[in-house]
Every structure is written in C-alpha cells, then in structure tokens.
C-alpha cells in the first residue's frame, strides 16, 4: 500500500492540485499579510476565506483524478483484479488527502507561527480552526473524486469548482454570515472565532470526509446511501450548530496593557506592540489638554466593539452611536488606528486633542470643524485638519478642501483674539457640552460674540 501510495503521490495529478492549493492560499494570505500578521481574528477570517477557495480547487482536482480511470480506459484492466473496490480507491484517495492536507496544513501552520511570534496576545481559536478547515478541504477533494468516478465528463471538474465558489458567494451576498459559506466577514479587533463556529465547521468537515470516502470507494447503493446521508447530516449539523454571530468578544484581546510612569497610558492587549509610540503621543496630547481645568490624568484606548454591543451585521453598523463610554473620571479614551499592522498611529496626538479630548463620547458629531478649532487652539497651530470621531480608519480618507481649512484657521484666530481667560473658559465649556452630548451650536460656544 505504501509503495502504491508513493506512486500516486508522484504520478497522479496530486502534485499539481497541491501546488494550486498552495499558490491560492499563499496569494490570499500574502495579499492580506499586514491585516492578520498581528491579529488572530483576522487570521481566522483570512484562512477561512482561503479554504473557501482551495476547497473548490480540491473538489475540481479530485474530479479530474476520479475520471482518470475511465478516461484512460484503465477500468477494464482494473476490473479483472482481485482487490475490493474500496481498496482500489484507497491509494488514490489517500494520496489526494495527504497532498491537500500537507500543503494547506503547512501554509496555515506557517501563518499561525507568524501570528504567534508577532501578535501581542495569544488566542487559539484560529489554531482549533485548523483541524476542521483541513477536514473540509480533504472532504471536498474526496467528494470531487467520487463525482469524477461517477461522471467522467470533462465538465464535472470546472462545474464543481465554479458551483462551490458561486454557492458561497450567493450565501454570503446578503452580508449576514452563512454557515455554508467561507467568504464571510465579521472579524474585528477584539474578537475571536466562536467555538460553535469551529464546531460547526468540524461537523461539516466530518460530513464531507465520510461522504467523500463512502461515495468514492463503494459501488454498493446502500453504502452510497450512507455516504449521501453523512453529507446531509454534516451540512445539517453545520447549519444548526453555527451561530449567526460568528465572532465573539475575546477578553484576552481587550485586556488593558499600561505603560510605566505617569501619566498612565493604556492600550488593549491586541495593540500592546504599539504601546511605546502610543504612550509618547498620548502623553504629548495629555500635556496639551492640561491647559484646561479638570484635565484628564490618564488615557486608555477605546475598545468599543460592535460585536460586544450585540450588533450582528458588523459591516454596516460599526459606529458606537448613542452609547455611553464607560470611563472613570479623569480618564480619557483615544482611538488607536494602526494601519497595516504598523506600530504607530501617526495621527494619534491630533485625534486626542481634537474636540478637547471629549469627542469619543458616543454622540453623533456630524460637524467635525469645531472639534478642529479646539484642537488647533490646544496645540497652538494656525489651523487643524478636521478629524471625524470613529472614522479615522476609513480606507480612503477624503482630503479637506482648502477653503474649509481657511475657515477653521479663521475661527481659531477669532478664538485667540479673545482674552486668554475667556479662551480657556470657552474651550472648557465646549468640552463640557461634548461630554453632555449637546452637539448643536458647538462653534458658537467657541467663537460667537458676547460672553461664553
């Protein structure tokens, strides 16, 4: 058996299928490398999407392998040999499974090691996910093998691949995650893949594996019926077990990691790798804010999470409107935006002073210009690029028009034209209005004529 297995591994299409799986996985994970390098939940999502594609490839490769016997007319010769049907299929199925699992396992294990080394905290749901993902991949390959043996048409392989991708695209098109699609989104910074999702994947993988083995290896209708039953059971179990809310809050990711010394600056464990630069900028911002009475003495990273807030469709409801931040007096929150896994947020200090340190209060602030005026006043800058709270990680930020920058500059000059005591008083009153969610007339508080 080992000898024949080796022959199949070398001479069948398994090396080509395995190479294709490797390239597609490497492409998906390579293109999103910066997103998941320090983030377990992003890794879980990306590996899932890679498996969604490679499973379709595996099914197609299995179908090509399955039709080999009939296409080459070797079935006539094999039919006169003594081994039972299941033994005749075993080396082919074994080689396909080994090839797929080895290649995908290798690349996923490499990704896991990279995150293990680079992430600031450890979360192992992405590791548990590895087993079910590999079972799904091998199961898809074996089902393709069974399909290729049953129907030797050249259209089976591309049909299977296209069908599997299409089904997943259709299932995930609504935006609400579907248990039978691997193209779901929903991972966010402080989450991990829910255990039930991993369990649902395991059920699906087991169903595919058992069905693939039974359908490929047997010509007995009763056994084939069992195979079809295993497939249905696996799919049904996945549908029942997998929750709609695929990611859950990861307490390990949200745990605060704080700097030594004062004033204290804390980031969540996910971002601990950026603590040094964050501390430098946050202390600079706290220094500017200390011009105001009752200034914050401590800064912590905002860790509002839509998943934690119970929002199912996180793709459209990621903003914490109408929520009250849970912070102790004297502590301010800041939003840390670390693009592409960078260890620094270049706009952190500016975002902290924008709105006098009170902009992340959960209220909808449609006009960021008064926030910019307060920021410019605090940093002694002539003007200030407006920063919309919670929207700093927009992929394509819209540049502020020059006339708006001029208007902000004019407002800043107007504020500075007031006696210093009044300037401080107005900015303080502006900050209290923000804290109380009074979002109308903010610019008037800063620069309108008359007593503040």
């Amino acid at each position, binding site marked *: *058996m*080992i*000898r*024949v297995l080796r*022959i199949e591994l*070398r*001479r*069948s299409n398994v090396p080509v299928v395995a190479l294709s799986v490797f390239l597609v996985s490497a492409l998906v994970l390579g293109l999103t490398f910066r997103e998941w390098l320090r983030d377990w939940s992003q890794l879980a999502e990306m590996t899932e999407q890679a498996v969604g594609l490679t499973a379709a490839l595996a099914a197609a490769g299995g179908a090509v392998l399955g039709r*080999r*016997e009939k296409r*080459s*007319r*070797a*079935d*006539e*010769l*094999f*039919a*006169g*040999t*003594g*081994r*039972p049907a299941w033994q*005749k299929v075993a080396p082919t199925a074994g080689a396909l499974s080994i090839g797929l699992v080895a290649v995908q396992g290798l690349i996923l294990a490499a990704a896991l090691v990279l995150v293990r080394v680079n992430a600031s905290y450890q979360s192992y749901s992405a590791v548990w996910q590895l087993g079910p993902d590999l079972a799904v991949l091998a199961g898809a390959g074996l089902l393709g093998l069974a399909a290729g043996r049953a129907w030797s048409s050249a259209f089976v392989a591309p049909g299977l691949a296209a069908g599997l991708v299409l089904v997943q695209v259709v299932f995930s098109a609504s935006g609400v995650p579907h248990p039978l699609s691997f193209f779901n989104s929903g991972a966010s910074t402080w989450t991990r893949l829910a255990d039930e999702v991993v369990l649902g994947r395991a059920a699906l993988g087991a169903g595919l594996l058992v069905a693939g083995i039974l359908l490929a290896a047997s010509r007995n209708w009763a056994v084939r019926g069992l195979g079809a039953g295993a497939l249905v059971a696996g799919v049904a179990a996945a549908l029942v077990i997998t929750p709609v809310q695929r990611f859950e809050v990861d307490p390990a990711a949200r745990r605060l990691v704080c700097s030594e010394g004062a004033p204290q600056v804390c980031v969540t464990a996910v971002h601990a790798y950026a603590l040094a630069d964050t501390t430098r900028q946050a202390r600079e911002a706290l220094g500017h804010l200390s011009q105001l009475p009752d200034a914050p003495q401590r800064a912590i990273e905002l860790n509002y999470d839509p998943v934690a807030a119970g929002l199912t469709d996180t793709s459209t409801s990621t903003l914490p409107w109408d929520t009250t931040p849970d912070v102790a007096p004297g502590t301010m929150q800041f939003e840390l935006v670390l693009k592409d896994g960078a260890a620094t947020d270049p706009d952190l200090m500016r975002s902290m002073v924008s709105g006098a340190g009170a902009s992340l209060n959960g209220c909808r602030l449609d006009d960021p210009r008064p926030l910019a005026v307060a920021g410019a006043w605090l940093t002694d800058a002539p003007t200030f690029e407006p920063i919309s709270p919670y929207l700093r990680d927009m992929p394509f930020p819209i540049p502020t028009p020059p006339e708006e920058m001029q208007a902000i500059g004019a407002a800043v000059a107007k504020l500075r034209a007031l006696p210093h005591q009044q300037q401080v008083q107005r900015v303080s009153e502006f900050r209290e209005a923000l804290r109380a969610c009074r979002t109308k007339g903010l610019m008037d508080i800063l620069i309108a004529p008359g007593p503040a």
Partner: protein
Amino acid sequence: MRAIRADELQPTTNPWAIESQDLKVRAGKYLAVRGLSLNLGSGVHGLLGPNGAGKTTLMRTLATVIKPHQGQLRLLGTAADDRRGLRPLRRRLGYLPQNFGYYPKFTVRDYVEYLAWLREMPAAAVPGAAQRVIERVGLADRADAKLKSLSGGMLRRAGVAQAIVNDPDLLLLDEPTVGLDPEQRVQFRELLREIGQDSCVLVSTHLVEDVVAACSDVLVMDQGLLVFQGRPADLVDRGRHPDGVGDSPAERGYSALLRQHRSAS
C-alpha cells in the same frame, strides 16, 4: 524460476483451466457469444476469428470483467458466478485487454508494480517480480521511462509485463502482438511458449502466423460460435482446401474454415 504456492501443491480435481458449457454472453443487447462449450488446460491456445466473432467478449468474460448471460463457466476450478471465489480466482489471473488502459505519467515500473498490488501480490515480492517481468519483456532499459514516452510496441510489452507479473495460472492476452516488430514478435512467441509450460495461456489475435508458430492449440470463432478447435497442423492441412485464400497454408486453412462455416449456416 518462481516460488510455488501452497495452493498449487494441493491436489486438484479440475484438469481444465477453462471449462465452459453452452456459454452465452451479451455485449450490450447483442448476444456476442452464443453457446460456447470449451475445455482448455495448460499450454498456449490461439484464438482466431474475424472482427465481431465474439473473441473480445469471450476474453472479457474469462477475465471476469463481464458476467455470462447463460451457461456454465469454471475458471481454474472456480465457478465464474461464485462471488466468494472471485477474489482468490482473480489473484491467479493475468489479463491484457485489447485496448489496455494506462496512466501516461506512470513509469513502466510504477505501472507493473501498481498492477501487481491490484492483483494482491505480497508487498515484499512486488519489486523483484516487477523487475523480473520487465526484463522478460525486454524493457529493462526503459523501466523508469514514463509510459507516454514509449512506442506502441513498447507499450504492448509493458502491458504483457503487467499481465504476467503475478505468475498467473490463467493468462488472457487480447491482441498482444499489435505494434511489435518481427524480432519482438519472435521473442514474444518464445515468452508465450515458456509461460505455457505450466499455465494456460489464451491468446486472441488476427495474426494466423503467430498462432501457428507459438500455440499448441488453435480455436476459431465466428459469429459467437466455436467453429474449430485443433492443432496448428490441422489448420495448415485445411489450407489445401480450394476455398482457402491467403499467403500461407495456415491463412488459407483459416479462411477456408470460415467459408465452410458460413455456407453451412
């Protein structure tokens, strides 16, 4: 030299490797073999017949690839419809189909070893047996060449190698000499005679000269029936009949047989 298995030393009650009585076999809806009664023992038996005579259907039936429609068939003492006996029986069969399939990327050695495994040879014996038969068919220098790189004649020889790798007691060869050059055909005949010393070899072919040169027994089929069974010399004798056409006495005897059978029916 080959090892003697325990079952070969057991007393046997069947002197015939192939025993059929009123055998009928369908090829699709068409009755391709129509009541064939036959007893064949050790030796090399040549099976001749025109296209559509039922030779390939008969060979497939004897190789247990298709089941008889009616009649009795025993192979190496086992009834062909005995499901329990089929697996041990197949271990003792060697078969080269007319259009034998192969995987082009396999090497000659891979192919022979793969078929040896399918015929349930002991794992330890496979590499040695494969090397031996590859040498016997004259492909030792191409043992590690991929099948897709071989000529037609070489492919046939690789096919013969897989058929004899398990030292079969019943060897079925359908058109084994297609593509072989004259020198290779002569060598192949020697190989057949050697195997036929202690096994039953049935060779289906259109080449009358091969049968006369290599076989101890000749069978002629036409329209699904056995129309002649005898020695090659008997076929040559029939070549003196005025009905016969062909370049050699054996060919004339063969064609005369067919004409007589068709005129009688």
